[in-house]
């Protein structure tokens, strides 16, 4: 049976402009196996805001029974979340969705991970699990500006890491796709998470198999309300980002 748990904030800090890293501990961590899954958070105990907020699982520490999320303060929901102090509780529904598949790779494969902005976090647990299984990773992180950059050091520990900023204030100037082209990055498989235009560009440019993680406005987060559907390519059906995704095989759905 699926569960909801009031998890406890064990650490919470700002790591870049408007970007926070928050760790929560509780029993739900036991269920967090697959990188790329998300949690659906209730950040208030009244109806402002009404809906839960979907945030990716960024890394999991089974020893400490804790997981970490990294999020950007956008509106009232993430603002309310940012006010939680160590020891406070957060109502967590999850882990939800299907994450990034890491099976089906031949031994010692090389994977290209591409993240844009707040699409970066779920790639971190992915990178950890891939390298743990003996694969190698290269990561391309795209941000608007220097002040927005986070987790460059963390990814660097796991493999070659490239940073692109739109204004060139850190790393290479331009988009992640520019970095991929310039450095002729490739591999056996790619994984990407970020804004739609980035995902579209990557899907179009890459010739190797890949997986894309999508965002969509959600209601329930569990597949019941049909808020988050996307169309399937070359077919009648549809997919729900929350329960069929958020990760889809490149080419499967219309981005």
């Amino acid at each position, binding site marked *: *049976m*699926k*569960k*909801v748990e009031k998890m406890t904030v064990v650490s919470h800090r700002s790591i870049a402009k408007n970007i926070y890293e928050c760790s929560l501990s509780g029993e739900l961590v036991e269920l967090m196996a697959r990188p790329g899954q998300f949690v659906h958070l*209730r950040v208030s105990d009244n*109806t*402002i*805001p*009404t*809906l*839960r907020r979907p945030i990716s699982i960024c890394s999991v520490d089974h020893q400490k029974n804790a997981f970490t999320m990294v999020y950007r303060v956008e509106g009232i929901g993430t603002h309310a979340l940012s006010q939680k102090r160590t020891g406070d509780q957060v109502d967590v*529904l999850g882990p939800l969705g299907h994450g990034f598949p890491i099976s089906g790779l031949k031994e010692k494969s090389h994977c290209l991970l591409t993240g844009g902005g707040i699409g970066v976090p779920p790639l971190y647990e992915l990178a950890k699990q891939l390298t743990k299984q003996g694969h190698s990773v290269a990561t391309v992180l795209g941000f608007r500006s220097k002040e927005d950059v986070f987790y460059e050091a963390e990814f660097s520990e796991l493999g070659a890491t490239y940073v692109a900023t739109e204004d060139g204030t850190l790393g290479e100037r331009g988009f992640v796709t520019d970095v991929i082209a310039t450095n002729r990055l490739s591999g056996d498989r790619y994984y990407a998470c970020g804004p739609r235009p980035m995902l579209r560009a990557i899907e179009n440019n890459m010739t190797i198999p890949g997986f894309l993680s999508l965002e*969509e*406005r*959600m*209601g*329930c*987060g*569990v*597949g*019941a*309300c*049909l*808020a*988050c*559907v*996307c169309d399937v390519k070359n077919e*009648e059906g*549809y997919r729900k980002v929350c*329960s069929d995704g958020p990760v889809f095989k490149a080419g499967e759905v219309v981005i």
Partner: protein
Amino acid sequence: MTKMNVSLPGLEMKNPVMPASGCFGFGKEYSEFYDLSTLGAICVKAVSPMMKRGNPTPRVAETPGGMLNAIGLQNPGLEHVLANELPWLERFDVPVIVNIAGNTIEEYMHVAREVSKAPNVKAVELNISCPNVKEGGIAFGTDPNIAKELTERVKDVSGVPVYVKLSPNVTDIVSVARAVEDGGADGLSMINTLLGMRLDLQTGKPVLANETGGLSGSAIKPVAVRMIYTVSQEVGIPIIGMGGVTNADDALELILAGASAVAIGTQNFVDPFACPSIIKDLELKLEHYHVETISELSGRSWRPSLQPLTTR
């Protein structure tokens, strides 16, 4: 549990709480959280004769104390529901209400005729109030004569009692309620969502791809209470109340206003355990107030010789 029993046309319910249509799919997702047999009933997503793709995304937006949705009645269509969803629900000991959406009277009739043959379908609910589809739907809900004719014709072919779900977006909901009762409806469901909209300040455009959407959640509860209070004094058929119920107090408020049972919509998204929690808390409240059966409370707000509930 007899305190909590509720008998409505077609529906022998263990308790007065059910999920509202469109907020619970066909039950599968929430069956992964708890045993659906604990529910008073299940009202499933609107079913139309043919599969419907619904509206483009974004389909939801948040508002103060509520949300807007413009799903557009996406559903897999009658045939698929009959072959897959309804049989799957047979594993639970719970009456099913099928919410029906159509563009023509014939479409409503067709779906009602067919779904009422399923053994676990104990009632149908005619959605004549969905604000998110351009044709049909909403016109049925705003014109008393059309609403009455629709009810009559569906009653002719339905094998189970017929509830009609009213739109709050009307000048005079009483006249629609009365018309539907005259047409032979066995019960009413109210309220559906209020028409609303949100703009994105930066783009200047509506947040929802469909532009307007249906407002639900706690923001609309006062409107639901008012309409149930008014209509329940004017009709003789029972009301399934809904609109902004987030906890047992809210459920009780709709019942006091005149509802015989209560449906939970948006709150399922906030708390997947909303329905079973409300059932448990409602039962505690009945004990707390020394109420014999929940049915006594229905319409208590307008009954003469009212005594305050006592906790002694």
